[in-house]
């Protein structure tokens, strides 16, 4: 006999993740209510206006770049890779949290992900689009960017498939495509919900078109769930491979400071760290604006902070290991590269990175800070500032002083480096805000699975 006064584990978990008396109806109403709003909140319009202005700056700067060439950037000899590659790696890194949350946490049956996975997946899509802009525009002659692709052409020319830059192209392209498929597959049942609740014929037709005629039958769920599980399974090695491949752009070179085997795991940990930072920033804003504090709860923020603590410590370990190996290898160039990072002319970049990525997450050992929303908001932004500096340290500080002192130079970004970077925020937020306005930001079907009554065997299993 079950004593009904004793709550099952599933019920306790559900109370933390979905507090208050929520049932299937209220979950649908709360989540679907946001894209169905008649009146768009004023904050949305303000942010959207800002995002569009930044997008205009982006379009203007990229237009000028295409017209004039990459000479408008601050790149020089020896710093041939400047902000473009920094921003590319930074945005791809942010894009990692989406698939990590959707895929890896799905395989580990971490139900708490159900409130933030849609959010994180959407963030991934737009972050990867922003990332893909940079390799696209930095090639100089953009109109021949299709030379990346292994397609038959009249020149009889093929890309060098042994080059990490081509690996990178394949990895990021595959990552984007698989993330898009994963995101859309997750959306199908929710689009059907929006279709069935639509008040106007036009909305019903548009949502209905993308819902593909979903009718929630178990004969459909059966294949759907298997497809979703397999997507999660194949995305898990994929997400770990993407930043490993990005890191091999650096690690396969012979530059002191880049030529290390620690790069792939260190890049992946950093990517997850920054991605969770961005999910945190965005979800704190969205739960505030749309009053979804009972669906994206403190419990979720707490768990994200714990993952940031873990990955923050991993990158901290990597930073110290790099120094150790530089000393232990006895290689003069390698040792100099690292001393130059900490004490050279760009010392401030290095210490900004250490402060944001190693010192700041240490507060997350304490529950008080993991549940303090203003603190979380500020730290989540510091995390991404820190991760931007990490890539600055790796790219600029390493390149500006390599082997021969005669070849050393300082690097200064120009206004166009800055404007294109700022502009990608316009691209990112325009897309993201449109998503918030028209699509459910939390997976409606999956949020219900957190409720114990969604499992017909609950009460029997404990």
């Amino acid at each position, binding site marked *: 006999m079950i004593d009904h006064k004793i709550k099952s584990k599933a019920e306790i978990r559900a109370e933390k993740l979905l507090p208050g008396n929520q*049932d*299937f*109806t209220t979950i*649908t109403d709360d989540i679907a209510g946001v894209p169905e709003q008649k009146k768009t909140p004023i904050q949305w319009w303000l942010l959207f206006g800002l995002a569009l202005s930044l997008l205009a700056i982006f379009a203007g700067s990229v237009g000028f770049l295409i017209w004039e060439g990459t000479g408008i950037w601050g790149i020089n000899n020896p710093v041939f890779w400047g902000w473009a590659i920094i921003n590319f790696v930074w945005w791809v890194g942010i894009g990692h949290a989406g698939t990590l949350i959707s895929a890896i946490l799905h395989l580990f049956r971490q139900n708490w992900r159900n409130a933030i996975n849609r959010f994180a997946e959407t963030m991934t899509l737009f972050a990867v689009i922003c990332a893909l802009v940079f390799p696209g525009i930095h090639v100089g002659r953009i109109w021949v960017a299709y030379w990346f692709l*292994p397609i038959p052409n009249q020149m*009889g*020319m*093929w*890309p*060098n498939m*042994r080059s990490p830059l081509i*690996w990178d192209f*394949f*990895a990021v392209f*595959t990552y984007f*495509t*698989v993330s898009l*498929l994963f995101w*859309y*597959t997750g959306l199908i*049942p929710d689009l*059907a*919900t929006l*279709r*069935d*609740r639509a008040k106007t014929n036009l909305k019903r037709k548009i949502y*209905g*078109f993308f819902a*593909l*005629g*979903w*009718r*929630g*039958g*178990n*004969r*459909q*769920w059966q*294949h*759907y*769930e*298997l*497809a979703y599980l*397999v*997507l999660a399974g*194949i*995305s898990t*090695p*994929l997400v770990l*491979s993407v930043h490993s491949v990005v890191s091999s752009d650096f690690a396969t070179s012979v530059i002191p400071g880049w030529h290390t085997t620690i790069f792939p795991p260190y890049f992946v940990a950093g990517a997850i760290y920054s991605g969770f930072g961005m999910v945190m920033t965005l979800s704190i804003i969205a739960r505030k604006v749309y009053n979804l504090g009972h669906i994206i709860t403190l419990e979720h923020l707490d768990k994200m902070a714990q993952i940031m603590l873990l990955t923050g410590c991993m990158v901290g370990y990597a930073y110290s290991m790099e120094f150790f190996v530089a000393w232990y290898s006895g290689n003069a160039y390698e040792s100099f590269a690292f001393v130059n990072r900490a004490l050279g002319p760009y010392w401030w970049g290095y210490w900004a990175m250490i402060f944001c990525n190693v010192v700041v997450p240490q507060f997350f050992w304490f529950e008080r800070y993991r549940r303090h929303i203003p603190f979380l908001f500020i730290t989540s932004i510091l995390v991404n500032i820190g991760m931007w500096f990490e890539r600055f340290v790796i790219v600029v500080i390493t390149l500006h002083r390599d082997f021969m002192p005669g070849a050393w130079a300082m690097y200064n970004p120009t206004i166009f480096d800055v404007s294109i970077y700022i502009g990608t925020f316009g691209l990112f937020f325009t897309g993201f805000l449109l998503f918030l306005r028209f699509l459910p930001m939390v997976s*409606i*079907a*999956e949020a*219900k*699975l957190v409720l114990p*009554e*969604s*499992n*017909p*065997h609950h009460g029997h299993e404990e």
Partner: protein
Amino acid sequence: MNTYGVIARFNDPVELVHAAEKVRDAGFTDFDCHSPFPIHGMDDAMGLKRSKLGYLIGVMGLTGALFGFGLQTWIHSIEYPMNISGKPFFAYPAYAIITFELMVLFSAFGAVFGMMYFNSIPRFHHPVFYSDKFSRVTSDAFYVSIEISDPKYNEQEVKSFLDKIGGTDIEVLKDEN
């Protein structure tokens, strides 16, 4: 006016699973259980076989990997041998990454488009959409549908059967003509 089947509503996932077992045991084959989210244990309750989608994905993944490896080998050994720092033309360790990426890419296409194929979607017209109440199934309602194509189908018997096993809001699916 044509009829297409009968639907009946059940209150929660537990009732729906029990109803599915009874419908299965009564010998119906062309029926479905509709719910806002996937229900654990429903495949057994309905007597469904394991989805064959996994085999399709496996074949697609293998195709992707062979295509990736074959493409790189063909480019560098046959079509366009490029001598870069004297590295071997058939540099198979360097092919590992693109082989892997294409395996994942093809498997993902297999998973999503295979799921659509097995589910026969997109399909925008289906008899269940003739019912107005049925639209709540994507929010908070649980339905069993038995279609006219079932060999045991008899409208009156199906209606009383669904009523007996606890279904409410029993409705015959009819088009509007």
